[in-house]
């Protein structure tokens, strides 16, 4: 989220001379922790607030989807939910078992604590212990590069990033989920089953400059910025 807010911040500063928006990065937990401690006025989180975080106030600025990716050379066109569950828990270990080439599957999973992982686990009804991964990655781009470098890999990343990289020529393909294709379009219309809100977190309902900024970030003034980072802007 940091690059997005960086650009929104710059545009805000241009529109409102005399203001200054400093953006630091470090992950959803840090965003929430720093906001709680008062180190940050606004925190960024790439997920919705949990019930435990009910002392904080969240404002959604964009949507993102999580899609399964495989290498472009892999002939598989779709995987069912149970197949994905089996692949990730290690019950299916060869692509041949799901109709693909005879090759061992390299499972790419996200590191623990990350919101993407939490959402993935929630959707597929798995727990961390169940997953048998061959590679654990941190950021989306690392996941994309790992899958692009291994013709028998499977992973899950932010849809927008995957779409962009695929268009750029990187050999990856997004798989549809429950027959719904994975694209920014389907996330926007809300029919894609696995999506998450990008949230700005404040300690109390925002006031003053904070409020102005958050409203700015939620307005249509920044839709182009959101699109350029491959997220889905809110519908007005």
């Amino acid at each position, binding site marked *: 989220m940091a690059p997005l807010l960086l650009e929104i911040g710059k545009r805000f500063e241009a529109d409102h001379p005399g203001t200054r928006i400093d953006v630091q990065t470090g992950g959803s937990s840090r965003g929430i922790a720093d906001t709680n401690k008062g180190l940050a006025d606004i925190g960024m989180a790439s997920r919705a607030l949990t019930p435990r975080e009910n002392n904080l106030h969240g404002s959604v600025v964009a949507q993102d989807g999580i899609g399964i990716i495989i290498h472009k050379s892999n002939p598989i066109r779709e995987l069912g939910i149970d197949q994905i569950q089996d692949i990730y828990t290690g019950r299916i270990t060869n692509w041949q078992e799901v109709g693909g080439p005879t090759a061992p599957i390299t499972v790419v999973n996200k590191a623990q604590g990350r919101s993407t992982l939490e959402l993935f686990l929630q959707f597929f009804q798995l727990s961390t212990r169940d997953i048998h991964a061959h590679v654990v990655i941190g950021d*989306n*781009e690392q996941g994309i590069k790992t899958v692009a470098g291994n013709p028998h890999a499977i992973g899950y990343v932010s849809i927008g990033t995957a779409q962009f990289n695929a268009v750029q020529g990187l050999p990856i393909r997004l798989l549809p989920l429950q027959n719904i294709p994975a694209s920014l379009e389907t996330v926007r219309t809300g029919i894609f089953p696995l999506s998450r809100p990008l949230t700005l977190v404040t300690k109390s309902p925002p006031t003053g400059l904070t409020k102005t900024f958050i409203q700015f970030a939620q307005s249509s003034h920044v839709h182009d910025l959101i699109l350029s980072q491959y997220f889905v802007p809110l519908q007005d």
Partner: protein
Amino acid sequence: MLPPNNTIRETGTTVLVWAAAALVTMPFLWLTGDLLWHGWHHISLNFVFSDPQDAGREGGIAPLLVSTGLIVGICMIVALPIGLGTAVLLSEYTHREQENGRWIRTSLDVLAGVPSIIFGLFGNAFFCQALGLGFSLLSGGLTLACMVLPLMIRTVEESFRAIALDQRLSAMALGMSRRTMILHILLPAAIPGLLVGCILGLGRAMAETAALIFTSGYVDRMPTSLMDSGRALSIHIYDLAMNVAGGNPNAYATALVLVGLLFIINLSASWIAEQWAAFHQLPT
């Protein structure tokens, strides 16, 4: 007539040594070749002198160069005198086996192995929060100085220790004070080690990423004071390569600029060293 097994050792060593050199050169050429291949078209005067735009995918890296320069500058200004002083102290004023010397040396060695991310978290807690410097170039520079010190101190100390004992004995026999001996005899002789310490320290400082994310921060604006937050080149490369979709080309270009900078710095350092040696009429 040379003994027969000498030829084996002779050719063996030659082969080994050249093979080692080749094994070291190959990845370097491969890596820089890659950087050049992917990054060359994106470099231009505009790139070096303008601000980043569109999360770094467009525009240039001017503020980052300034930020990096300031951070590394602070680091070296702090680390050099402290490093040199400590090294001299360790080498000349404490006996090798004395308790003080051993403990200090052990501590430094352990410090050298502390992961960069812990330095970053420590820097954050100490410089940014406890000392109230906040996310700033100053915090980043000071944290880096902490990281670089052990490396520099040990390298320079080794260099001093390698100077033969009778240099010191002759100096004392001539009635020189310790300070004179250090300044005029030992220091010039330890120049190779000093330079290496600086180069290694500088290299480590420019290469550091994890420590800076938590201390000097992520802001890519042109810094107006040392208390401003500023993004270092290494963090920019990381962000472009790992966080921003489509940031690859500029990541390569930035990396290339960094390598270029290192090259220039090294050449300058060598040149300065040669001038110094020529001035003092020392054998190089």
